[in-house]
């Protein structure tokens, strides 16, 4: 039998069911990988004791015939999900040492289905970034390197630790959150699958808030089927999140096991052909369409005229919501406190010392666009553009069932590249942000390697609450692309 850490979630479940391994053995094998690859800095907090305890309980449940959907499967959790009794930092100094007294709905759902937590993964501070470089706990290293070049590459962001942990075979799956591309872009950079569900599919309760109208938890895994299994366990209506959709959870895994896309209409949005996209990615995009066509899909050219405005509009909406959400970090009830001579100075000192550079920058942008006299010119305008973006997608989906686009304009870049100019960094999310603005589900599937040997991803975008069609298309893409490359040394 292959090493336990090489197995997918579906394969692990089968091995556990056949008693070829116990959950404790599976946990230990993966914990050893956490040890081996600690230099990647993928985790902020490792929880080996908790993992073994949960695995033991899982074995006991299985012995009683009560195995859940993810029984005994080890997972890594982005350190943005509150986990009861386990430090949750959002990769910020201001939350260092914060120990939640409650469990987020999504992680509670995962534990209910039998999954085992091995640790909390690194991320960009408060999920703000596309490189994982804004973490207070240091950047994460991408397991992949350019051929013949030993420079460390970023794993993407903000869910960089979760993506790197899966790509390095430390865990078969992990959770992320996606506000503007924070699951899909790191999945592409690390050569794995990452899915942002429809806004409202997974509860946001207990997830540290960044931009509430955009934030959405979702899974990472190495296969489309595994991603679907995780999504199935994470999803569901939650009365504690007023934007959680009161809808039943479909059998996502069944959809992922059915790559029959004959007759499916795949839209190619012409506005996604933009300058600055690497030629290899443009070529891969065409190849991706050919693969889907060969599998029986019909390509359709569609137009999303407001695509180029999604990114600047996002950089009003997201910072505005961030500045409001992050007002709670005031040094009074939890987190860091830096004393001051009076209460105002305590607030200012705490926030000045506790937030990193990018977070401070976004709080300032948000405060400015919401301030008196500017609200309509910026915030209202951005919300109107958001409405136009959503309308574009609605019209496109009258002509097609899914959209195919690149996930990111480049492959993974080196730490330090693209860091000087914030706008250049923001452009990394140009292909993922439009779907976020419209609340639509999107998935990144690894589809090939570039000339440097780095993985590249293609994105599929689906209709609202139609993750099943999205997963079917993704499964067809996965089958055709047959991506089996692994980062050297992992």
């Amino acid at each position, binding site marked *: 039998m292959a090493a336990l850490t090489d197995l997918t979630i579906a394969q692990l479940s089968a091995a556990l069911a056949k008693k070829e391994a116990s959950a404790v053995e599976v946990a230990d094998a993966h914990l050893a990988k956490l040890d081996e690859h600690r230099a990647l800095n993928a985790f902020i907090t490792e929880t080996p004791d908790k993992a073994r305890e949960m695995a033991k309980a899982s074995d006991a449940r299985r012995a009683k015939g009560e195995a859940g959907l993810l029984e005994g499967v080890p997972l890594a959790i982005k350190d943005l999900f509150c986990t009861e009794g386990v430090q949750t930092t959002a990769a910020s100094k201001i939350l260092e040492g914060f120990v939640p007294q409650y469990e987020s709905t999504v992680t509670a759902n995962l534990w209910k289905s039998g999954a085992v937590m091995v640790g909390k993964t690194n991320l960009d501070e408060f999920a703000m970034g596309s490189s994982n470089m804004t973490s207070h706990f240091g950047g994460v290293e991408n397991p992949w390197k350019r051929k013949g070049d030993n420079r460390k590459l970023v794993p993407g962001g903000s869910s960089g630790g979760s993506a790197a942990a899966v790509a390095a075979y430390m865990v078969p799956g992990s959770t992320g959150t996606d506000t503007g591309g924070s699951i899909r872009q790191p999945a592409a950079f690390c050569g794995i699958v990452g899915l942002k569900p429809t806004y409202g599919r997974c509860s946001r309760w207990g997830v540290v808030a960044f931009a509430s109208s955009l934030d959405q938890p979702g899974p990472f895994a190495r296969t489309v089927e595994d991603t679907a299994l995780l999504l199935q366990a994470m999803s569901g209506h939650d009365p504690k999140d007023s934007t959680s959709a009161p809808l039943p959870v479909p059998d996502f895994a069944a959809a992922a096991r059915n790559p029959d896309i004959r007759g499916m209409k795949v839209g190619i949005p012409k506005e996604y052909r933009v300058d600055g996209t690497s030629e290899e990615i443009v070529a891969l995009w065409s190849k991706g369409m050919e693969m889907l066509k060969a599998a029986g899909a019909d390509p359709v050219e569609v137009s999303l005229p407001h695509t180029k405005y999604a990114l*600047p509009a996002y950089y009003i909406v997201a910072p505005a919501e961030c500045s409001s959400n992050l007002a709670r970090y005031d040094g009074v009830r939890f987190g860091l406190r830096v004393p001051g001579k009076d209460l105002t100075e305590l607030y200012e000192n705490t926030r000045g010392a506790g937030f990193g550079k990018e977070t401070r920058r976004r709080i300032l942008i948000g405060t400015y666009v919401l301030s008196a006299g500017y609200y309509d010119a910026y915030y209202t305008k951005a919300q109107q553009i958001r409405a136009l973006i959503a309308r574009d997608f609605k019209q496109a989906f009258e002509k097609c069932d899914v959209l195919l686009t690149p996930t990111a304009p480049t492959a993974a870049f080196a730490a330090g590249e693209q860091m000087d100019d914030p706008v250049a960094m923001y452009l990394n999310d140009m292909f993922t942000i439009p779907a976020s603005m419209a609340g639509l589900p999107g998935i990144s599937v690894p589809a090939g390697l570039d000339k440097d040997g780095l993985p590249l991803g293609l994105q599929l975008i689906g209709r609202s609450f139609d993750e099943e069609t999205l997963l079917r298309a993704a499964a067809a893409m996965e089958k055709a692309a047959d991506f089996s490359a692994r980062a050297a040394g992992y």
Partner: protein
Amino acid sequence: MSLDKETVARIARLARLKVPEEELAPLAGELSGIFAWIEQLNEVDTNNVEPMSSVSDVTLPMRADKVTDGGIAAKVLANAPDGAVYIDPSDRNAGGFFTVPKVVE
């Protein structure tokens, strides 16, 4: 749109964010760059477009106005930065409070 140092200092005060004097000028430059890039939104005609504040089609649900938890003062106060003060240290769930610097003279 170009932001000057004074504007950045004013926003920082509104955001209760201490920004060291020497960072104000570089920040003004960065933020001006970002807002110059955002200016392109003015190309879009948004007359008569209803602003979209939420992507959910569903009407937000109402719930019964009743107490659903309580008696967890110890949990509420567990992460107090300088420690909490409990009314009855032998029963932390009896209640307590956070402390802040004096706000009245």
